[in-house]
Every structure is written in C-alpha cells, then in structure tokens.
C-alpha cells in the first residue's frame, strides 16, 4: 500500500508539474526540427502530398482539388506579397487551419512543435527555400468602421474589379468564367463559393480576408489586388464580401439588414 500511495502521489505531482510546465508554446518561438519533421511527414502528410512532396501521394487520384505540390514552392495562403515565399508561420497557420473545401484537415490537435517540425521539413522539397528568403509580411492597417456606406462602396468595387466574373454576382462561385479556371498546374479550380461555408479559404476573420485580397493566392487565378486597392478600399470590399457569406452571422449582415437589405445597395454609391 505504501508503494501504491507513493506512486499515486507521484502521478499527482507529475500532473501538477505538467500543468505548470506545459503552457502552449507560441509558434513564433518554435524552431522546427527537420529530422523529426522528416520522420513524421509520412505519418500525416505523404498519403496525399507524396513522399517527394510533389502532390502525388497514393490518395491524390481520389482528391479534388489535388494536394499541394511543395516542390514548386508556391503557396496560396501567405502573409507575404504575391510572388514571395511564405513565412514559416504562414505554412504553420495553413496546416493548423486546414482548407475548408479540400481534403486538407485542420491539424490543430497535433502538438505545435510537431507542426513546426513538419513545416521545416516540407520546405526542403522546394529549392526556392534554399535560395530565397521569405517575403516580408504585409502590413494590415486597422479595420475601418462597418457601415452601410462601406458595404455599398465594397459592392461597387466588387463590380468594378469584376469579381463576379468568377465568384458570381451573389458569391456562389458560379460566375461566367468559373468553368474555365485552372491552377498553375492546369488543374480545374472552381472559384470560392462564399455562400457555402462559414469560413474563407485562408482564414475566418476580416483580417484574413483583407490579407487574401492584398497578397493574392499564388498559383491560382486569384491575383493580388495590392496595386488596385487602397487599404480603405480593401476594407470596404471585405465588408461587402462578408454580406455574401449568408451562412454566418456577421456585423456586416446585421448592418445591411438594418439598412434595408440588398435593395439598399442599389441606391447611389457614395
């Protein structure tokens, strides 16, 4: 009994120590371990992405859209300008978040260190990472107020920038150009249907959407609008696109509803 009690006390003490010591690490403080990433990549990733990271895993034939080809060093979800390499944190965030309309699951339940180890390993598939530094993350200014005027301006930008050609007038992803769209590997890539999900491809917040407008999604027809939109314009567009996302309650939809709904958008733009 003394031994049992002693071990029980040991377990409780260990639990207490783990509670104190095991704070969730911040990803910025993580340093990836290539060797461990190499060991863990087959467990979680290469069924789809392939042992060489070329997106030709054994499951790839059954997946649509196809898994990312890491050898190209091209990533959709980045905080860096179009054409630049992503930061480690960008890839880490993508892995954590998963892709909402693809087979890529959110790996948030994997330990943070393990996720960063895999990030470091998968970068090794592309020679770009050996020769280029990642881009500098764009600056995201403070969000402007969500008003009906902002939403109206965003509606106007949606038309002016011809977003509807791909995403459709109501954001269903059924614009006239939709059937023709392909990614950089000439694989069909339907545009995002804003009305179908509660999330966007590269995140769930307004900041994530702003970032997507300004960085673009490299390798896809969604280009960067950093040279076409001022920061205020981009926030207006964010606010309007939010109103197309009818599956999620949002301040934008509340403001629009209060102002009289979609009819109010047909009034003259300020």
């Amino acid at each position, binding site marked *: 009994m003394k031994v049992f009690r002693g071990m029980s006390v040991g377990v409780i003490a260990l639990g207490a120590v783990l509670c104190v010591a095991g704070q969730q690490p911040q990803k910025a403080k993580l340093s990836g371990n290539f060797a461990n990433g190499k060991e863990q990549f087959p467990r979680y990733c290469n069924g*789809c992405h392939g042992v060489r990271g070329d997106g030709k895993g054994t499951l790839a034939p059954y997946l649509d859209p196809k898994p990312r080809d890491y050898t190209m060093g091209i990533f959709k979800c980045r905080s860096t300008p179009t054409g630049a390499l992503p930061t480690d944190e960008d890839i880490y965030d993508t892995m954590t978040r998963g892709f909402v309309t693809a087979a890529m*699951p959110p790996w*948030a339940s994997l330990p943070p260190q393990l996720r960063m180890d895999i990030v470091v390993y998968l970068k090794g598939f592309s020679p770009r990472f050996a020769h280029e530094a990642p881009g500098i993350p764009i600056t995201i200014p403070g969000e402007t107020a969500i008003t009906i005027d902002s939403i109206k301006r965003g509606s106007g930008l949606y038309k002016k920038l011809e977003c509807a050609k791909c995403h459709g007038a109501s954001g269903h992803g059924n614009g006239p150009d939709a059937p023709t769209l392909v990614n950089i590997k000439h694989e069909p890539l339907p545009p995002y249907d804003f009305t179908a999900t509660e999330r966007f491809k590269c995140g769930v917040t307004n900041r994530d959407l702003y970032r997507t407008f300004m960085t673009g999604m490299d390798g896809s027809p969604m280009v960067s609008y950093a040279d076409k939109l001022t920061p205020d314009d981009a926030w207006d567009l964010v606010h309007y696109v939010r109103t197309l996302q009818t599956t999620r309650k949002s301040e934008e939809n509340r403001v629009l509803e209060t102002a009289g709904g979609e009819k109010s958008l047909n009034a003259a733009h300020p």
Partner: protein
Amino acid sequence: MPRQAITISPDEELSARIKRGRFPLRRGRFCATAMAILLLLAAESQTASAIPAFAKKTGLRCSACHEAWPKLNAFGQNFRDNGYQIGNERDSPRYISPLYWPAGVRYTPQWHRERNSAQATNQSASGVQPLSTQGFDLSGIDLWTAGILEKNISFLVLPSSDEYGNFHFESGWVRFDNLHQKPWLNVKAGKFELDEMISEKRMLTLSQVGGIYQIYHYLPLVDPQAFAASTQAAGETGVSTTGFGLGDNQLGLEFASHSHDDYTRFSAALLTSSDGNVNLPTSKAYDTFLAASRQININSLGPETFGAFSYIGQSPTRYLTQTPSGGGAPVNIAGSGYGNKTFTRTGGFVMFSAKKLDVVPMFTHATESVNIALGIPSNDTLPAGVRNPSWNGRMLELYYTQNLQFIVIARYEDIRNSRQIFASSAGNFGDMDVETIAFRWMPFMHSRAGLAIAPEYSKSHQIGASAIGSNQTLTSAFIGLDFAF
C-alpha cells in the same frame, strides 16, 4: 455512369524502402526471410483494384489517426470526439459519393498456445494439473460501419461475433455533435465504449491473457474455504452478481465536452445497470461514469495527457422468480431485480510521451458490496466476519514506436486486494500480476486496409485462484494476422 474500379499503385514509401533494401527488422536470417515473404505478399496485395472508402471520406491514411491501428493518436482522438468529422466543409454526406459505404471488417487468423498451471481435472489426484494446448485458430469478427448521417450527427453500428459466429451488437449509437456549433456540447445515446482515454477496445494486444486490461475487469476472488466455513442462507451462491468490467461497452446516454483542439475533455454518462447487456435483464437502476482529461505539450517531448475517471454502479441482489411450467428450479424474471447494492471503480492515468516512447501508468481503486461479491440477497443476514471488498490496480504500459510500421508494446499490471471479503483470508489472496510483451509490424499502410503481424506473449499469476486454492499461472503465446479492410 458506373464508376470504374481504380488500381492503386504500390505504396511509394514501401517501394522506396524496397529499392534501398532498408527494412525495420533486418537482423536475423529468420526475420529477414519471413519479412521478405510478407513484404512480397504485401506488395502484391497493393496492386489489387480497390475503391478506398476512407480515402473518399477523409483523404487520410490510417497513420494520421492511429499511432498504430487501432490505437488512436491525438489527431485520431480529435476526429473521434468531433463525430468522425475532420473539420472542413466536406464532412456532410451530401458531399460524398453515393457509392461510398462506410463499412469495415476486422478479423484475426492466429496461432496460439495456452498454458494453465493448475487446470482442474478429474484425472489429477490433487484435483488440478498443468495443461497446455496449441494450434491454429480464428478470432471473432467485427463488422464495422460508422460515419455521419448529416453534418454533426454521427453513428456507429458494430455487429460482432464470437469465434463460432454467434453475433451480437457490440456497439450501436447515434451522437449529436457540436450542438450550437460548440465542441463542448455533444450527446450520444445507445451502446458505446466508456469515455476511456486508455481504450481496451483499441488495445494492441490480442491474446487470451493479454487481450484485456485486468485492472478494468478484475473481480474479487471468493475464498472457497472461507465461504464453505461460513453460515450460508438459501440463495447464497458465492458468485458475484455482476460481471462488470470497465472495458465493457455500456448502454446509456453520454454527454461529452472537449475543447477545439481536444486538449481538454470531460464526459458524464448515465447508464443502464446491465453491464451493456440488452433487453433490460437486471433492474431499473442506473449507473454513472465520469471522466476528464487534459493534454499539454512539452516542446521537445510531445503531447502529455493526464486524466481521471470514476464509475458508480449498482447491481440487484434479488429477483422475482417463476417456476418453469415443466417444473424445476425457479428462475429469475428479467428486469425484476431489486435490492440493489453498489460498486465503484475510480482511477487516474498519465500518458507520458517522450518522442518515440510512450509511458502510460494507470491506477485504479475499486470497491464492491459484499452482497454483490458473494451473491447474497440484500435481505439475508451476512455471514459473520465478511466485509465489502476493495482492491487497487496498477498498470504500467510502454509503447516504443520505431516507425510507422513497427511498434513494441510492454505492459505490467498488478492487482492488490486491500480488503478481503473474509477476514480469515490471507491478505494477498486473489492478488494478481500480469506481464505482456508484444510487437506489431504493419508491412503496408494505406487508407482502406491494414494488416499487422502481431506476436505476443502474456503471463498472469494469481494467488489462490485454482479450484483447490493453489496459485494459478496462465500463459499465452500468440501470433496473429490482424487485418482490417
């Protein structure tokens, strides 16, 4: 238009390993030869045409969810807790091909050797003698079907048979997941495994001795000499009225909560007091089970989990009876049980991970009413000197995951009785020690099928367990071809 069967190319990793001539186990001529044959068989099997059902569903290979199947890793536990949904927008069946049928089969052809050091026989002068037997054999079969009916409504049905083909429903439930879009609100009803992080249903050992967690199933041994010497009333059997085991699936309603990342989990279940047996065979009573666990991360080591659980159960000690129309002894009327007495199981565990090594200590404390332990009706006078028995269990389980395809398992359990039923019994009467060592080698891995070659040796030793009260040692040597498709 009918969908054509698609040929799966050989697993790339396996092919690469074959080319390099590198295998997890290449020491020893026998091992190398055996594995070469098995690898060839495995590689051959991968060229078969198939439509990988789970690839269609999740697009993931089995190692994503299983440390070594069927043992779940953190991601697999999250997938399970989230109602078999991976958390993107493709979880709903409306996005899945009508041809997809979420079914699986698990079966284990095997060879095994069993030895009992003290088997009761009529031929032995002492009443017991050593007995061993061996040969090729079959397991029962599990016919799994599980998935989701609609987004956030999951289900599982598991018809299962014993070795003779006698089927029963091992499990069957519907779960409402993420109510109000919150992972903290999940409700499951039906027959299900208790919310145990150390799952007996997913254990990696399969032999007769090592195929269960003894600390989940131990029941106090009744000292036959002390029982015979006690004053007995009619109806006293000396046999426990419950065959309860923490590893048994139970019938009831479970409320489960977990954080988004599954690091924090807790659950509460209200269960019919029947040890999972259907058709309400006992009484109108209910049991409760509570569990909680917390996972944390230590960067250089990995996920560490600790938790606790408690089961409070009841078992009737009396029944209304009816004499069969043809005469004979009165039989209990199902569902008429009364005179309930209680039993408890409480425990705690740590799942400590240090890179490739997992160390899992678990402790349990159990109590039981002496009426249950001796089968004494609640209105009978208890024999003099009997007490409610209690015992403690300890388990230390080690996993060494060499790589995706090879895992070593070692386990030690002991049961120590802290209070005997009869004061006159020896303090260590019924105490038990169990040691198990095994490994599983999985020669290939893809998302539809899994095969594990699983050798195992297990030995239990229990004080006073034989028919004549002598010590009893059981050993199992086992090698199985454990496959799921």
